[in-house]
């Protein structure tokens, strides 16, 4: 999901200006159709798996050889949203944890990214490799080790523990992303601001921060999505006390066997990523520079 989010995000921003500048009359017909075709295919690729889900959520009878459900029903939704369900609570928990992780990871990532991009740190390559560790190391290994540490530290089975456990991976992503964004900001500008009467912090706020804004939005979005879709760490560190949407989804799927309710919860789980992507796309379409640093 996050991977798809990245490509969907960065492409329009990078490619839109040249397309608009190209002289319209001289463009061959094929080129005019290429862009919508790619968009439609990409859309199908991303949304394809979700379509059966969307159908499933509104039926209670849909058996194997049938191409179409035999009967429509809102029973799944009634169950997912009903008084017995803990979906609302799970969504609140997920949003709260996600927001905390996003805020912390973005702030940490912005600070670390600045150091990586602007200063000649010894062992810079090594640091970048370590930052990639959450992607490279199997999550199960990390989660098992983390659980022992958190148990000893008395942080297991708590919201704080889950936030802290999700933070490293989210921060690593945010740092990598922000170091690319910082690389596109000229350090001499802050120096210039300081000679004009701005203190160190004010120079950052007035000069660099406005240039980072697009990057910060993307970093926060990624951090939130990493948190939102985390299952393993939340399960082990949260110890069943902290129930987020993915946990509820899995429990419903495995425990009740109610496919319609499972599909309904799954749709709820998918909504925020799509919503965030759409919002961020609007926010970023107007900005030209910062985002292009992503991935360098």
């Amino acid at each position, binding site marked *: 999901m996050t991977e798809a989010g990245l490509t969907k995000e960065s492409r329009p921003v990078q490619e839109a200006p040249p397309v608009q500048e190209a002289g319209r009359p001289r463009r061959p017909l094929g080129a005019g159709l290429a862009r919508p075709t790619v968009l439609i295919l990409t859309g199908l690729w991303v949304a394809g798996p979700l379509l059966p889900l969307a159908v499933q959520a509104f039926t209670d009878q849909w058996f194997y050889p049938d191409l179409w459900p035999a009967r429509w029903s809102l029973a799944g939704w009634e169950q997912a949203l009903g008084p017995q369900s803990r979906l609302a609570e799970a969504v609140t928990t997920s949003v709260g944890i996600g927001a905390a992780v996003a805020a912390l990871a973005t702030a940490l990532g912005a600070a670390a990214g600045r150091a990586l991009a602007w200063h000649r740190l010894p062992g810079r390559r090594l640091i970048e490799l370590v930052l990639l560790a959450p992607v490279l190391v199997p999550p199960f290994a990390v989660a098992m080790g983390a659980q022992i540490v958190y148990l000893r530290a008395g942080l297991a089975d708590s919201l704080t523990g889950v936030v802290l456990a999700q933070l490293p991976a989210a921060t690593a992503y945010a740092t990598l992303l922000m170091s690319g964004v910082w690389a596109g900001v*000229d350090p*001499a*500008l802050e*120096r*210039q*601001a*300081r*000679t*004009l*009467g*701005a*203190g*160190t912090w*004010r*120079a950052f706020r*007035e*000069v660099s921060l*406005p*240039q980072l804004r697009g990057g910060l939005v993307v970093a926060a979005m990624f951090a939130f999505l990493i948190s939102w879709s985390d299952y393993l760490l939340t399960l082990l560190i949260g110890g069943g006390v902290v129930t987020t949407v993915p946990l509820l989804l899995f429990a419903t799927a495995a425990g009740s066997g109610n496919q319609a309710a499972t599909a309904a919860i799954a749709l709820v789980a998918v909504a925020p990523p799509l919503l965030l992507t759409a919002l961020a796309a609007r926010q970023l379409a107007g900005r030209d*520079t910062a985002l292009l640093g992503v991935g360098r």
Partner: protein
Amino acid sequence: MTTDITVADLDHTYPGAATPTLRGVSLEVPVGTRTAVLGPSGSGKSTLLSIVAGLSTPTGGDVRLAGRSVLRQPPHRRDLGVVFQRPLLFPHLTVAENIAFGLRMRGTDRAAIRRRVAELLDAVSLPGYGERRSGELSGGQQQRVALARALAARPGVLLLDEPFSALDPQLRGEMRALLTELHRREGSTTLFVTHDRDEATDVADTVTVLLDGRVAQHAPPADLFRRPATLAVARFLGGAGNAIPGTASAGHFDCPLGRLRLDTDHRGAGLLLIRPAAIVVGDRQGDNVVPATITAVTDRGTHLDIQATSAGVTLHLTTGPATPLRPGDDTPLWLPPAHLSVVTP
């Protein structure tokens, strides 16, 4: 409002560097004057400026503004304006917002900011450019905005680091004139760093020559050419074309050309320096006239480059393009005492 700058015995060595960048540099810029620090690249001049601005810390010595040591003050408390080689306009702000930046940091009220910005836009001949973005301006226009921005808060001290080096030559001349004009209006004490000797002598009333991190000479521009303090200064300023060995005594210099009259503090063995353009061709009564034979004439269009020998010494001189001289001609040459200097060989 303006402030004098004192740099006292400044030392600076970059961490891990074998040789120091600055060695015992002392320098004084009186209130309201303009001093250029002139030196080749690597002479430490930009480091000097960066220390005065508070962006670098010296390893020794002191910087005083208005008599007070500012070494412990961060740049934003030093009441300065700095213009670097690159305009460094803030890309997310308009031209007017860029110029207003320093005033806004000082909490000036809006009406006053608007008046001052309009006044400065006029002063740098960019009226009506306030709402543009820096990307829409040419290099010269951007640098003019940078100048206006540095001066907006009426700082006591204006520091410039090679501000016109990135511009093309014609524009550079205009910018020098603009800077002189702005200085006349605003009066900020100005310290100016450059490797371009024309720029230094055009803009400054005093020039400090910095060679290998040391002050080699501190003098008004004309004296610099007329009386270079050392052979290195003369070489850097392109005035070591005629260097004649001999012995200096009070009021005299004895060399193969004879006993020349001049005013020097140097005693004993030395090199007599005279710039090619200072030698006068033609018959003349009095001291310092030596007989010479022309050996080569090269027409440069704007002037003639002439080689002559006198008592076995080769002299280089330049004359007006229409001077009727040919190789083989015998002519007396006058070496004006005011243009003779003696340096240590």
